[in-house]
């Protein structure tokens, strides 16, 4: 398939809106992406043509809904090359996926003397659950530091990976720096000391091939809404033998096998971890988003998004007074920066006036902001539907704002 951004843009109704009479330039894709018409249509179709609960009733629409729901599970498994569909658990998002492990595994397997190893680069969603787990179990939280270039400093692995390390939790692609961390290497180091691994893949799965067989991680979490799918849906991948051995997370319908007044036995995985009526429409929508991404293919997506990122990096660097945070060799389409004497919120406000949506703030990574010594940064993040012309508009508007604010 030939990668044609103009034809791709036609598939996304939201991209054709105007803001303050100017065409929308949406550059906040690391926060959430827009949805192609096919995803919107899949959700609409479920609600208007075969709306029913899944895994229960015997009537026709219930069967159709169940089939569509479970078909999405197969699509997810294929997307991340998971050998066993039972590894795929649907959650509300990356945050819930990580919390599921923190509660159903962490609180039953960790205690005083054990160490949870995370990195200084984590999104709060992969930090707070472990702070709470450490607080509740008496385990200790340790951190792999970051370098000035916004990469992980893995130069002293023996300091962090020890016999006490029981879990290593890390972000695969930074939502601030764009850095792609050496996931395979980290997972190998963790396994060498007998620790389990959980990968926060919220920023990586949307942008490049993430392969469970190759990575060999124990758990992996990502969200639907950052990869052209609906909000409210996420995925937890887990190795089947680990998921089987784990205690349940939420108790309720669907996750049980038999129930008496006194006690219950659990359903098989993955349903053991899908208590209550699941997010049926969202799961079906996510399956359609995966179809969309797969039809284009990661090879073309990686190539195009790299072109955009390189273009933006070089244009931004040419502006006076710009500091770009993160300079890793392996990076995704995310650029964080600060402008001298212009606060990120003032910049974002002026860009909004021009129809440009960027993010300004701490990006749910306050420890990184402390490390960088800034209260906040501005962040532009790209998706497969962005164009160089949009980046030109961004750069011109930043230059105008700098002139106005400091001139």
């Amino acid at each position, binding site marked *: 398939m030939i990668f044609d951004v103009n034809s791709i843009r036609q598939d996304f109704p939201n991209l054709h809106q105007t803001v303050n009479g100017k065409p929308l330039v949406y550059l906040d894709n690391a926060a959430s992406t827009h949805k192609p018409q096919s995803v919107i249509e899949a959700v609409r179709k479920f609600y208007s043509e075969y709306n029913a609960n899944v895994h229960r009733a015997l009537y026709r629409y219930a069967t159709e809904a169940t089939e569509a729901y479970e078909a999405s599970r197969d699509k997810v498994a294929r997307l991340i090359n998971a050998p066993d569909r039972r590894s795929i658990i649907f959650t509300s998002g990356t945050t819930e996926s990580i919390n599921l492990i923190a509660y159903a595994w962490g609180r039953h397997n960790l205690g005083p003397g054990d160490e949870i190893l995370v990195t200084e680069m984590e999104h709060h969603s992969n930090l707070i659950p472990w702070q709470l787990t450490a607080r509740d179990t008496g385990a200790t939280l340790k951190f792999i530091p970051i370098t000035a270039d916004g990469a992980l400093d893995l130069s002293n692995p023996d300091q962090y990976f020890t016999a006490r390390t029981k879990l290593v939790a890390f972000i695969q692609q930074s939502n601030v720096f764009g850095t792609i961390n050496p996931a395979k290497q980290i997972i190998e180091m963790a396994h060498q000391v007998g620790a389990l691994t959980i990968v926060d893949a919220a920023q990586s799965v949307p942008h490049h091939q993430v392969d469970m067989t190759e990575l060999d991680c124990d758990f992996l979490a990502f969200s639907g809404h950052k990869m052209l799918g609906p909000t409210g849906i996420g995925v937890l991948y887990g190795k089947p033998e680990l998921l089987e051995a784990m205690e349940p997370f939420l108790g309720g319908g669907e996750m049980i096998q038999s129930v008496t007044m006194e006690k219950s036995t659990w359903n098989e995985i993955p349903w053991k971890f899908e208590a209550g009526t699941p997010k049926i429409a969202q799961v079906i929508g996510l399956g359609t988003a995966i179809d969309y991404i797969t039809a284009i293919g990661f090879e073309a997506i990686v190539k195009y998004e790299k072109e955009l990122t390189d273009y933006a990096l070089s244009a931004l660097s040419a502006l006076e007074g710009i500091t770009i945070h993160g300079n890793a060799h392996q990076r995704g389409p995310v650029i964080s920066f600060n402008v001298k004497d212009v606060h990120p919120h003032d910049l974002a*406000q002026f860009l909004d006036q021009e129809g440009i949506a960027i993010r300004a703030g701490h990006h749910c990574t306050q420890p990184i902001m402390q490390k960088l010594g800034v209260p*906040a940064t501005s962040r532009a993040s790209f998706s497969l539907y962005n164009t160089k012309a949009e980046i030109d508009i961004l750069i011109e508007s930043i230059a105008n704002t700098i002139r106005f604010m400091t001139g």
Partner: protein
Amino acid sequence: MDELRELYQSLILDHSRHPHNFKVLDSANRTADGYNPLCGDQITLYMNVENDVIKDISFQGQGCAISKASTSIMTTILKGKTIAEAQSIFNKFQHMIKTGEYDIDQMGKLAVLAGIHKYPVRVKCAILPWHTAINSLKSEDKAKIFSTE
């Protein structure tokens, strides 16, 4: 010039680039920290309060142009006011910043901030110093920390 530029023009020229009372106050007998975790705005207010009168007030910190300008203007207004007067001005200011409606005789130079009501996300930036000051003035705690979240 569009509205946003107009709003910033009046703010920045007067206060954001060269904020008034931007210093540590040696005579302070009351300090208050204000945080807006969403933006990363952080201000420290220094106040000298005697017999319910704000004798002197200054600030330090970092933030966007709106929060800086709003803090700067606030310090010039509150100097010499009683706590009750400060509360009364704050109530009118809060109404203005949320609705855009105000009485020029009452608001005086605070009126330059009225345009912010059109940018609801930024209302917090403008109100942060006021919340911080009023919270501190009403509190027994002489080193109060206030957060918008």
